[in-house]
């Protein structure tokens, strides 16, 4: 109860204080409101920030893990490719080594073969020597041939000359020009004259029925060889000579057609005309006059109507 009395004694104070305090609170309300707002806003800010940073951290964590994962995958890929490339380089280098060796061998053996070239050059020298020899021989043969031909020609000419000068041959009584008694041996020409057959001299040609002149060409032709026969195969069988002679000598017995001259018809006509001219004295007989008057109708006469 004491407390109640105390309380009642304080009621006025309380009322007073209530109003004083309200007034003070009212005066401080704005400031305190603002301060409270500020504190609250800062706290909310902290909250939000903490939340955001939490979110950020989580997101970073996720991203980090993810990126690590992907990167490791990529890395493994890259390692694989790098390994692959290294392997391929190595293989390439080895392949190049093999190809080098092979190509060197091949070129040295087949393409630029030293031994093949040596053999070729040796073969070439042999061929050259061969050709040279052949050409020499051939030239030699040709030369000999030519010399032989000239010698033979000279022989021929000398023989022909000897034939023509056969009268210079020495006789028993008189030695010839080429066989001088002061010489030890007769001259070459003399020997030739002795060896050679004289030219055939033809006697004067007899009178023949058909006077053909056979020209003597033997002095004009330089070489006296016989011409080859015209027919190679044997000719014949021939008719007996008597029969041929009789046939040739038979007198001409021309037929009537052959015997008449070609102008016989014209001549006969001429003869007939002449005969007519000679014999016919009277040209027109009596029947002709009447016939002449009766012949043409009047329209063909040129008379004025």
């Amino acid at each position, binding site marked *: 109860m004491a407390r109640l009395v105390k309380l009642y004694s304080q009621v006025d104070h309380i009322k007073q204080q209530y109003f004083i305090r309200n007034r003070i609170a009212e005066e401080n309300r704005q400031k305190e409101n603002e301060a409270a707002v500020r504190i609250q806003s800062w706290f909310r800010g902290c909250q939000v920030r903490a939340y955001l940073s939490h979110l950020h951290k989580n997101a970073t964590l996720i991203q980090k893990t993810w990126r690590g994962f992907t990167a490791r995958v990529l890395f493994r890929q890259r390692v694989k490719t790098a390994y692959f490339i290294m392997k391929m380089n190595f293989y390439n280098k080895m392949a190049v080594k093999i190809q080098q060796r092979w190509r060197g061998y091949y070129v040295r053996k087949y393409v630029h073969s030293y031994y093949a070239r040596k053999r070729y050059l040796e073969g070439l020298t042999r061929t050259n020597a061969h050709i040279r020899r052949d050409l*020499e021989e051939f030239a030699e043969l040709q030369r000999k041939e030519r010399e032989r031909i000239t010698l033979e020609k000279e022989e021929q000419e000398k023989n022909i000359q000897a034939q023509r000068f056969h009268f210079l041959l020495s006789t028993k009584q008189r030695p010839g020009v080429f066989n001088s008694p002061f010489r030890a041996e007769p001259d070459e020409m003399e020997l030739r004259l002795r060896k050679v057959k004289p030219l055939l001299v033809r006697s004067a040609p007899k009178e023949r029925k058909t006077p053909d002149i056979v020209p003597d060409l033997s002095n004009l032709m330089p070489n006296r060889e016989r011409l080859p026969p015209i027919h190679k195969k044997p000719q014949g069988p021939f008719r007996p000579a008597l029969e041929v002679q009789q046939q040739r000598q038979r007198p001409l017995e021309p037929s009537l057609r052959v015997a008449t001259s070609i102008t016989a018809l014209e001549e006969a006509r001429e003869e007939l005309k002449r005969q007519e001219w000679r014999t016919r004295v009277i040209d027109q007989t009596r029947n002709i006059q009447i016939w002449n008057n009766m012949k043409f109708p009047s329209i063909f006469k040129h008379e004025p109507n």
Partner: protein
Amino acid sequence: MSQRQILQAFEQYQKARTQFVQTVADLASRPQNTETLQNAGVMSLLRPLLLDAVPTIQQTAALALGRLANYNDDLAEAVVKGDILPQLVYSLAEQNRFYKKAAAFVLRAVAKHSPELAQAVVDCGALDALVVSLEEFDPGVKEAAAWAISYIARHNAQLSQAVVDAGVVPLLVLCIQEPEIALKRVAASALSDIAKHSPELAQTIVDTGAIAHLAQMILNPDAKLKRQVFSALSQIAKHSVDVAEMVVEAEIFPAALVCLKDPDEYVRKNVATLIREITKHTPELSQIIVNMGGVAAVIDYLGDSKGNVRLPGIMMLGYVAAHSENLAMAVIGVPQLAICLEEEQEDHLKAATAWAFGQIGRHTPEHARAVAVANVFPKLVNLYLDTESSEDLQVKAKKALKSVLQKCTYLPALEPLLYEAPSNILKHVICQFSKVLPHDSKARRLFVTSGGLKKVQEIKAEPGSAIQEYINAVNSCYPEEIVRYYSPGYSETLLERIENYQPV
């Protein structure tokens, strides 16, 4: 009776004309009379005789005209100006074969002097008449016509083209197949004259199948025919690779090599020309010829012949060696070429020999050694330095020296050059020394003992030039004292040292 007197007068006139024309023809066959005849006005007198009623007088007049025109181009021009040509062309178509021969002879005599006269002959329509006479039976007429055609076609490409356009080539090919040798000769020379101007003309001739017929005539014994045949083949082959291959495919080798031993000089020369034209195109063709032993045959030919006819042989060797080093190896018949260089007096032959040497020696040191051993360098240097040599010769000698020296490692041949050569050649010589000496000790010793090092020291060269570098390279192969010992003026420096020396 007066009739007889009249006839007698005509007969006397005819006899006089015949005699005059025959005398003129006989006189015209000697060249010293042409001057007098021309002054006497023979042209104007012969012209009406060409139109004479008697055929013999016509023929003899034509013959006399032809002989006159043959010797002298003034007379030939007078023939052209006197309008005689159309009459001749007309009668070529009409008259008998003696007149045709004489008329063709006149055309040939006129056409041979110069291209303008030949053009005048063509302008008169002579080509058609000549083509008609090529179809005649008589071989003499054909020969005269073919000869006239060859003289017309000889001058330049247009005339040859005109001749070909007239359709002459198939007829000439037919003429080649005739049995008469003179006709073959003239037809072959006509083909050769046509083919020599341009590749198209050569191709035309090849298209008519002339090569096979020409190839058949190679082994004919007549020398003049062979001359013409080989000349024709070489004129055809020189234009292009295809045609040359066709000529080779006609299997003329090795029969043509045999003709290199023919006694007639010009046959040999034409065969060598043919081989040269074939080898100049490609290495394959040269290879074919080398494989058949052509090189040996040509070297023999060079040994046998003297003078101008050697030129195609030398050039053939040069062409063969130029293609590749295999072939150049095959050509090493170099002693023969060296003799050519010594013996020849003509500049162009020496130039050709120098060029051939250059082609042989430029491939590898082996080849250069073969050239060097034949003791060629001093001669080439002499040719280069000789003031009497023509410019062409000097240029070729210099090029040959340069190209061979750059590959030459045969030192004994290089040493004499140190003393004689002018400075631009010396550069190459010392360059070669500087390449060889660092590797070969015997060569170094030999170089010193033969006095080469001394000579090198005496050479004056501007510092920084190429020669100086080579000289330095050579000097660096030797120790310092030796270089100083051989440098000029060493004895003076030694004496100076003696003077300055104070004895202790």
